[in-house]
């Protein structure tokens, strides 16, 4: 009898499974052909046609609402060309991409945010060189600075996609107006303002560098920004490529300059406590005390705009906004620390190249910008298409001919340093280790 009831149970299980599969199959098949869009609408996509029914897979670290916007941005392209784009975003992108590529399961396209990682795949012969059309439109629309980051040994692998500007200081325009503070235009003014706020018994700066297993990265951005300001772009390049040691006096100077703010007990950590609380405050929360008036300045990238709670007005006359992190010596131009992703290909099928070409065009950049929450370094991007004030400011800075653009240095260093000892060193530094000792430690790890 026992056998009988077991058998019955198995039957029930299989039928349940069957149902579940049926449901899964149904939900999977919703991408019906809606290729009856009017031909006039599809005219701009004419050049990409001829790949109807093909699928291109894209893998990236962009997810959630931003991934929604991405998928919306190429919806028209899909409808008109018949190419289906399978997008997958993952928080474990960097590690997973390596596994996928090693396992022979590489995506067709990937948006890689680290030039260092891109170089590693290129050196291993996994990447396909960018098609000519991508190269042509990238050269026409991006500055040489940008293109250099996706060029390895003279081969160009892919155009930049989105980007963000890191040289920003967040503040509250409302509070500034109340207290009569003005946005500082030079580094000296910034320090004077900090002193002025500190003299009133308040802490001007707040910061947070906790970020799970990436704890420390916000502090590396601080150092990079100050390297650009105290040493200039040339020294910065030498530092990033290890032509000067990590404990070079030029780096010591930059780190000490950052320490003048981050390790000054009078300046930090507004809303959270003493200097050491920086290490335990998450980067997402680092700047939030600005809203409550417990802190006035927070250096963080343009993407910090997403961190403010819903309903916060991020605008020049709103609740919070950001100003350009002023430079020390304006004669050297205005250094801008930026980051972004590059569209690289692991396959060179014609439909993959069609998608890659499309993503490199200014038309795509403008289309994507219109959806909101996006910045690109493309010269073909019309500022009027950019929605958010902070994104607008970012685009203006990126397109400003006076700007000297440099990519986030820790993303270009070998992973063991840029995503390892540099992060760890910064945490120790915040916790009281001396600048020289910290830099010696990082230098030692860079072989």
């Amino acid at each position, binding site marked *: 009898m*026992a*056998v009988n009831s*077991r058998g019955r149970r198995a039957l029930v*299980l299989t039928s*349940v*499974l069957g149902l*579940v*599969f049926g*449901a*899964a*199959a149904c*939900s*999977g098949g919703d991408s019906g052909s809606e290729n009856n869009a009017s031909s006039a609408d599809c005219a701009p996509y004419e050049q990409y046609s001829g790949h109807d029914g093909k699928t291109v897979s894209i893998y990236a*670290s*962009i*997810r*959630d*609402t*931003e*991934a*929604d916007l991405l*998928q919306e941005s190429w919806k028209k392209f899909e409808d008109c060309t018949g190419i289906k784009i*399978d997008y*997958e*975003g*993952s*928080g*474990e992108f960097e590690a*997973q991409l390596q*596994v*996928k590529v*090693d*396992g*022979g*399961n590489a995506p067709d396209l990937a948006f890689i945010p680290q030039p260092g990682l891109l170089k590693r795949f290129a050196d291993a012969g996994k990447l396909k060189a960018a098609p000519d059309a991508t190269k042509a439109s990238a050269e026409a629309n991006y500055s040489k600075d940008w293109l250099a980051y996706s060029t390895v040994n003279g081969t160009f692998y892919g155009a930049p996609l989105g980007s963000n500007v890191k040289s920003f200081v967040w503040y509250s325009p409302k509070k500034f107006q109340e207290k009569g503070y003005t946005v500082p235009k030079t580094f000296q003014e910034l320090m004077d303002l900090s002193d002025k706020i500190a003299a009133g018994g308040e802490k001007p700066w707040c910061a947070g560098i906790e*970020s*799970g297993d990436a704890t420390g990265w916000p502090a590396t951005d601080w150092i990079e920004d100050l390297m650009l300001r105290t040493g200039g772009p040339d020294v910065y390049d030498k530092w990033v490529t290890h032509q000067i040691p990590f404990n070079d006096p030029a780096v010591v100077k930059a780190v000490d300059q950052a320490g003048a703010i981050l390790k000054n007990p009078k300046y930090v950590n507004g809303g959270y406590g003493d200097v050491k609380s920086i290490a335990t405050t*998450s980067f*997402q*929360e680092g700047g*939030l005390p600005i809203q409550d008036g417990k802190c006035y300045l927070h250096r963080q990238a343009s*993407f910090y705009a*997403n*961190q403010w*709670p*819903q309903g916060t007005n991020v605008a020049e006359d709103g609740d919070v906004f950001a100003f350009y992190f002023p430079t020390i010596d304006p004669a050297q131009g205005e250094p801008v620390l930026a980051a972004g992703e590059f569209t690289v290909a692991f396959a060179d099928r014609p439909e993959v190249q069609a998608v890659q070409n499309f993503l490199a065009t200014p038309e795509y950049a403008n289309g994507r910008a219109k959806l909101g929450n996006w910045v690109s370094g493309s010269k073909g991007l019309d500022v009027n298409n950019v929605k958010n004030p902070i994104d607008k400011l970012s685009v203006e800075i990126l397109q400003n001919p006076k700007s000297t653009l440099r990519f986030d240095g820790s993303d270009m260093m070998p992973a063991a340093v840029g995503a390892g000892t540099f992060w760890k060193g910064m945490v120790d530094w915040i916790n009281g280790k001396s600048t020289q000792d910290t830099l010696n430690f990082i230098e030692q790890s860079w072989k």
Partner: protein
Amino acid sequence: MTTTTPVATAGAAVSADSPRTAVGRVRKRLNSPIATAASIVIAVVWTIPTFGLLVSSFRPERQIKGNGWWNAFTDPQFTLQNYQDVLFGRSSSSGQLASYFINSLVITIPSVLFPLAFCSLAAYALAWMNFKGRDWIYISIFALQIVPLQMALVPLLSFFSRGVTLGGITLLPAWGLTGSEKYIQVWFAHTCFALPLGVFLLHNFVSQLPKDLFEAARVDGASHPRIFRTIVLPLITPSLAAFGIFQFLWVWNDLLVALIFAGGTKETAPLTVRLAELAGTRGNEWQRLTSGAFVSIVVPLIVFLSLQRYFVRGLLAGSVKG
């Protein structure tokens, strides 16, 4: 049977006279008031983080991000917004955990049933069938537990996507699985990774069944399949349930294997993969994580609570010799 499960007997007769076995003595000592108090303290301390998560999941975004969950007692502000977001979010990104729930079930159920079937068959064969090299096979299966599954990820992925080629001869072609066929990869992977522990656990249990049973059945002319079906299976139900729960919890909570073999697309990704993405590209929406976690906890809780008596009994039965 009674001699092999001393805990069950001790548990049934707590107030029995001086216990005979070591386990019984330990149990007796643990029954003192001090031990009880200590275990209550441990339980409370252990539960506080989970409780904090639960409280957090009902707090508004601004509160979650601004201060700790204990402030909810002095300044009670509660909302169902987080649950609304993760369960029925309008945009394709902000939740819709419901559909991933189904994916999780589709992944988990076969990934529990396959190992159960294979492990119990293997355990029976290794315990009661006489063939050459039996002990060596058992030892090597046991030893496989030492190999971390992370080491097998890339080779296994390559096995699916490239097939097996030896010296230019294709032994197995690439599987070429796409879309929802990727479930097969996940089932395969989970089954492989479950086998060593499963075979070991069930073998311990099966080998302790009294020899007389098998001899009697053999005399009556029962074949191996028949003995397995009518004698072994009904007798090892507790340990099957125990291993089943074990495997269920592990597969349900697994992120790594699913991420690699099922991918992150809506067709195949389980709850855990979705949860990991829920916080947004830069972790800006992490207030959703607490409610998302509680949604995903529901099923394991039900499974565990309804089967937990088997869990304790079955695991001990497999490991403790009377």
